[in-house]
Every structure is written in C-alpha cells, then in structure tokens.
C-alpha cells in the first residue's frame, strides 16, 4: 500500500506553525533582553540588583565595570519620587 502522503500535510503544517511561532518568540525575548537570554528565578536580591544596573547604565540588561558610578547615580533613584503616605 502506498504511503499516505496526504496525512503528512497537516503534520507539516502543525510543525511549521510551532516552528515559526517559536522562532518569533525567541527573537522577541532576545530583543527585549538586548541579545541575551532572559533572566529567570529572580529573588528580591536579583530584582534590586537589576534596578541598580538600570540606574547605572540606563538600559535594562547593560553591564559596566567602571570604578566610580556616574554622578547621576546619586540622584536618579525612584524613591525620591515616592508619594507621601500619611
């Protein structure tokens, strides 16, 4: 009995859809994280450090190994903008 090639068409379609959406999802995640895989399993320490990195470099995943922080670092904390809670 010959191979039922018609059955392979939906298989190929489904594989293609999975592949295309996975490809675009990977590209989206990489572009958000500036070419790196996303961070996962973050605890409070990591979130605070990520916020500090953003204050130091201006981008979400940028890294810098300077000795001294830029002068804007001393005043660019978001806590200064926090509303008063009475």
């Amino acid at each position: 009995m010959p191979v039922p090639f018609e059955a392979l068409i939906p298989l190929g379609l489904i594989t293609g859809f999975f592949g295309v959406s996975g490809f675009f999802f990977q590209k989206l995640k990489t572009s958000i994280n500036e070419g790196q895989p996303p961070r996962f399993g973050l605890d409070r320490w990591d979130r605070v450090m990520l916020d500090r990195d953003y204050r130091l470099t201006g981008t979400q995943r940028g890294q810098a190994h300077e000795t001294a922080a830029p002068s804007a670092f001393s005043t660019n904390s978001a806590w200064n903008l926090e509303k008063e809670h009475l």
Partner: protein
Amino acid sequence: MSTFREASHITTGKFVDPTPAPAEAAHPEVGATSAPLKSAAFFIGSYCKDYNEDFMLCKDENNDPAHCLKEGRKVTRCAMDLITKLRENCEKEWEAHYKCLEKHNQEYYACRKPERTFNECVFSKLKLEKVIPGASNTPIHLRENTIYN
C-alpha cells in the same frame, strides 16, 4: 529584618525635591553592575575582608543606616580600589567571564572556563585566590570533570 518593595506610588508630572541639598557632595559609589561584581565577588571578599567584617559587626550593633555610614564608605572605597586594580591588570578576562555569566542567568556553573582564565590572571597579577569557605573535598571551581563544565 526589613522588607523591601520597589518604589511604585510615584508622583507624576513635574516634581521638585523639597528636601534641602546636602551640605557635602555625595560620596563616590561603586560603578560596577551586578555581573562584574558577581564575577569578582570572591576576590572582593578576600581583598576587603577587614572592612567588610567591620561593617557587618557595626550593623550587628545597630541596624540604623545612619550608624554605619563611615564603615560603609570604607567598604565602598576598598571595592573601588580592587575594581581599579582589576581594570588595570585583568580587564579582558574579567569582561569575558561576566559576559558569559550574563548569557547564563548569572550562574557560576555554566562559565567555568572563562572563570579559570580569570582566576589564573588574578592570581598571577594580584596574588588573590578564590576560596570557597567550608568546601569539603575539591572545591567545585577546581574540579576537572563536572556535568556542565
């Protein structure tokens, strides 16, 4: 134990800080972000051991932030000193290691090879060694055959 939350209830629109400017200029802060600090963590620990222990003991007495400002400035200065030394001597190896860490969720296990070159460079130039306190057999960073290598 103090809790922390991100600053979320932020004022919108134009904002003028009502507190007066401090009398002296702000003290210099460490300019390294999380990945370089994690990469150099053990070296900062051994190079700045005295100042770090001083600070922790001071915090143990009184957890008020205003109480330990002087010790904190000493810790900052020591870390900045080591970062300057690392930039002078081993900058390329340091960069390679922390860029590798950034690609792997800042996990040490995934970046043993750049770590080895970095540790060798630091040991030869700055005489600092990475020691894991309380390691029973061969420390993990010195083992030859690991799963992830």
